[in-house]
């Protein structure tokens, strides 16, 4: 056997020690390089604060119908007038129409703007249809009321619901001065004519409301109501002075619902 000097032994041992350290160092470098990344789609529409302008002069009964249908179909909002398929859903109990669910709907002037009702109000307002929905308030009371943070304000101003966290306590419904929220008193599925695969349904026991089509904005598409409204609804960035909504607000006299409450709604009505 070859006789090793102390010197050559130390040399080999030293190189081996470097080798021992190298493996963890390389591992460290490589895991750092390949970390999963979460990001927005490149085509996503973004804003500092999303807002909506509704031109009441362009809202007709027909527009209301189209808008409601487009929104409710796409988001699987149940329609209690839909005849239940007895084969698929046997023994469905009769509906209570007071428990209907809605994301965007028609309202009379006196209910939409109760503080602006007037004995001598221009007659045309008496039977004009007004489209109302969640106002995505800047100071949203529902967000403050929610005990689980299921309702929250997203960075871009949208008041959104995380249905996974909703416990159905309905504090948000009590807090919302606009009645923009509905509660699922029962399983909605029997009352959905055709389930749209693009958005989950809800279950019994959660609250729901308009999400400003955040699933569409993420793909670079405008909300369903905008598309179906024949130009009556515009959605855009309230904080961008160059935006279309700001141009409309600049050129027209607009009002918001129950402004005196201080919730700062983000939905404006051109009168």
């Amino acid at each position, binding site marked *: 056997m070859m006789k090793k000097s102390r010197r050559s032994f130390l040399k080999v041992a030293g190189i081996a020690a470097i080798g021992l350290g190298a493996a963890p160092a390389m591992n460290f470098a490589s895991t750092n390089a390949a970390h999963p990344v*979460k990001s*927005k789609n490149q085509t996503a529409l973004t804003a500092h604060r999303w807002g909506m302008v509704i031109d009441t002069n362009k809202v007709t009964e027909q527009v209301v119908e189209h808008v409601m249908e487009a929104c409710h179909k796409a988001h699987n909002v149940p329609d209690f007038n839909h005849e239940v398929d007895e084969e698929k859903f046997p023994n469905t109990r009769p509906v209570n129409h007071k428990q209907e669910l809605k994301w965007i709907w028609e309202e009379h002037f006196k209910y939409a703007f109760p503080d602006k009702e007037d004995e001598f109000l221009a007659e045309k307002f008496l039977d004009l249809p007004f489209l109302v929905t969640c106002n995505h308030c800047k100071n949203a009371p529902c967000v403050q009321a929610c005990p689980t943070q299921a309702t929250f304000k997203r960075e871009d101003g949208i008041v959104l619901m995380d249905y*996974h966290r909703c416990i159905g306590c309905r504090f948000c419904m009590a807090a919302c001065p606009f009645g923009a929220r509905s509660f699922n008193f029962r399983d909605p599925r029997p009352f959905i004519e055709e389930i749209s695969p693009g958005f989950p*349904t809800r279950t019994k026991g959660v609250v729901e409301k308009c999400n400003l089509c955040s699933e569409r904005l993420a793909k670079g598409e405008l909300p369903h109501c905008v598309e179906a409204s024949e130009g009556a609804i515009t959605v855009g960035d309230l904080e961008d002075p160059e935006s279309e909504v700001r141009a409309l607000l600049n050129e027209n006299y607009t009002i918001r619902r129950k402004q005196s409450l201080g919730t700062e709604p983000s939905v404006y009505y051109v009168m």
Partner: protein
Amino acid sequence: MTKNIILTGLGIFVLAVLSPFWFNMVTTTQAKPSPELLGKAKTEKKCVLDKYDMRANHMSLLDEWRDSVVRDADRMYTSANGKSFNMSLSTGENSCLGCHEDKAKFCDSCHTYASVRPYCWDCHTNPKEIE
């Protein structure tokens, strides 16, 4: 005499004690579920994470995905293996069910075996089930 009695007694005792093993030998029990890669998942080579990581951690991955989508508005996931996914449980081509097209033979085969009943499907829809 007593020797024979003791020996037969012992024999019966051993047979009885080992009865679960005999029982298992004659009956067939499915030892473990075999989730099948069907549809798009058959041609694709890779999942979001590697196989064993998926097997052990897909529930936490889904949890991460839904928080990212719903709360942070981030819907793209670029995985450590270089592939990107439009984070979704069942909507779109590269959602879990968009790739694992047969939920019953994939997800459910494991879940039934393990008695896991995810409540996700109360809301989320299986595109194959709504024809």
